[in-house]
């Protein structure tokens, strides 16, 4: 597996509202290349919205999101940026139920136009990386919750992202399984050098990250250690 370098992410005075509800209010943040940042906050504080804006899943109302100096929504095809730069892991695994674990990992590669043999090889390599090579042909319904989330991690890594965004990736898992999934994410960050941005209620995640921030009512409330330290 090639080691991708981390993406440099700048969130510059970003605001986002859904109807009359202000999800984010003037948020500014920088994720340095290869940095692991954990974000906490109460439900409805805007964590998932911020993650979606950074990943190009939604447009900000005001402000900019720059990845390696390029505004993601200013590019002619944001899907291309999602394909080439960003990997997502969500609270729910969002695996396609009719496809095997291997086929699920191959889905992003199909979107990238990879050939069948290359897709297969890459998917098997990633499943081995997350310890599920022997479960490659199993359907999601035949896997445990932790295994499904590990498949989702493998899928997020399929296109060698330089930025991995994880939105409460262990929210639906027990504590032991959660620990294993976070171990996997941080180990991969250490080995591949990608920038990692994790949303989690788990305080221990903040301890393992390079930096931890807290979001309250759509604004960054605290940062440990402070940015620039």
């Amino acid at each position, binding site marked *: 597996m090639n080691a991708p370098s981390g993406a440099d992410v700048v969130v510059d005075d970003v605001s986002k509202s859904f109807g009359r509800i202000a999800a984010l209010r003037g948020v500014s943040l920088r994720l340095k290349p290869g940095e692991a940042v954990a974000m906490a906050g109460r439900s409805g504080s805007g964590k998932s919205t911020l993650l*979606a804006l950074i*990943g190009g*899943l*939604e*447009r900000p109302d005001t402000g900019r999101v720059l990845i390696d100096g390029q505004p993601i929504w200013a590019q002619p*095809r944001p*899907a*291309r940026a*999602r*394909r*080439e730069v960003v990997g*997502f892991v*969500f609270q*729910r695994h*969002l695996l*396609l*139920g*009719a*496809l095997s674990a291997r*086929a699920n990992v191959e*889905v*992003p590669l*199909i*979107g*990238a136009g990879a050939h069948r043999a290359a897709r297969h090889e890459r998917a098997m390599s990633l499943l081995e990386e997350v310890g599920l090579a022997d479960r490659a042909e199993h359907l999601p319904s035949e896997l445990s919750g932790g295994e499904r989330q590990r498949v989702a991690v493998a*899928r*997020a890594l*399929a*296109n060698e992202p330089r930025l991995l965004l994880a939105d409460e990736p262990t929210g639906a898992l027990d504590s032991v399984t959660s620990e294993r999934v976070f171990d996997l994410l941080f180990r991969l960050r250490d080995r591949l050098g990608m920038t990692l941005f994790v949303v989690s209620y788990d305080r221990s995640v903040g301890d393992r990250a390079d930096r931890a921030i807290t979001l309250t009512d759509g604004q960054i409330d605290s940062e440990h250690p402070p940015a620039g330290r």
Partner: protein
Amino acid sequence: MLAIISTNLTRRAARTVLTASGIAVGVATIVALLSFTQGLRETAAGLVHLGGSDLGVFQANVADPTASILPEAMVGRLAAQPQIARATPLLLLVEAVRGDPSAIVFGADPRGFFTASLVLTAGRRAGATPGRIMVGERLAAKLKLRVGGSVTVKGRSYTVAGIYHSGIFFEDYGAVMDLAQAQTLSGHAGEETDVVVRLTEGTRAADAAKAIERAFSGVQVITDPQQALRAGANSTLISKAILVIVVIALIVGSISVANTMAMSIMERQGELGLLSTVGWSPTRIALLILGEGVAVSLLGAAAGLLVGVLGGRLLVSALGVSAYVSPSITAWGLGRGLLVGVAIGVLGGIYPAWRVTRMTPLRALAGT
């Protein structure tokens, strides 16, 4: 991509089958109608060259060539034309034979070339003897008729004088009686349906047709099957009706597929949002949706082709109208059915595919 399309269709097998069935009905209807049209064309060909003639002279502007009425005096005047070698009158009695209404009875001059061209396989010629008739071998086989037996025409019984073979379907599946008797039987004394004509050697049918139509007002000359179909308002109506049915099938089929696909898209917003999230371009996702629509349509079209071919034959057999029209399957007819099926898939998939390209990934994911 193909594997995902296949998986998506098989995991919702009931919906796929129902959608394909709707398309199959449309395609089957089209294929059957096209095969009937082709059958009509071939039927018309048989009517044009009755008795081995080069052309037929009919009354102009009739709803159907068999409804034509000409004065008997036409024959002599036509025979006097320089391009015409021989001319003989025919009076066609349709739906006249008890036991097989699709058979046609030809009232013909016993001395004309039409009667002379019949090859007797049993018995003798009926001539002008009252109460006598000759029966074609196909009709004889169908009604189990023998020489000396009887057949009922327009409620009157006739003795079978002979059984003949001509090689022309309508003649072999019909009967021939003396023209004068046919005129009396049908109430058309001194009249005929048409005059069949053999041209002098070297005369082109098209040239002769023009000359005859110039010389005789109120007649039309039919030289080829297409012309025969056009000459009949009923045939024209059928052709136009088929066009309308094809368009209706296209519209209804497309709306049906679009509706099913749109419902499927609504249910699968989360899945499609995921594809967008992992970097699938809107174009690629739209192609996936479109591909599913086309695949369902191909399944439906294939089933429709089969049902159209078999159903057309069964229908004609069940209705007992095989003498007038029998379905004729051509590669182009099948091709058109297939094209309509695929067009339904493409048209039906366009709207759902367009909708998908308008969704932002986050909102689509929210639909999970």
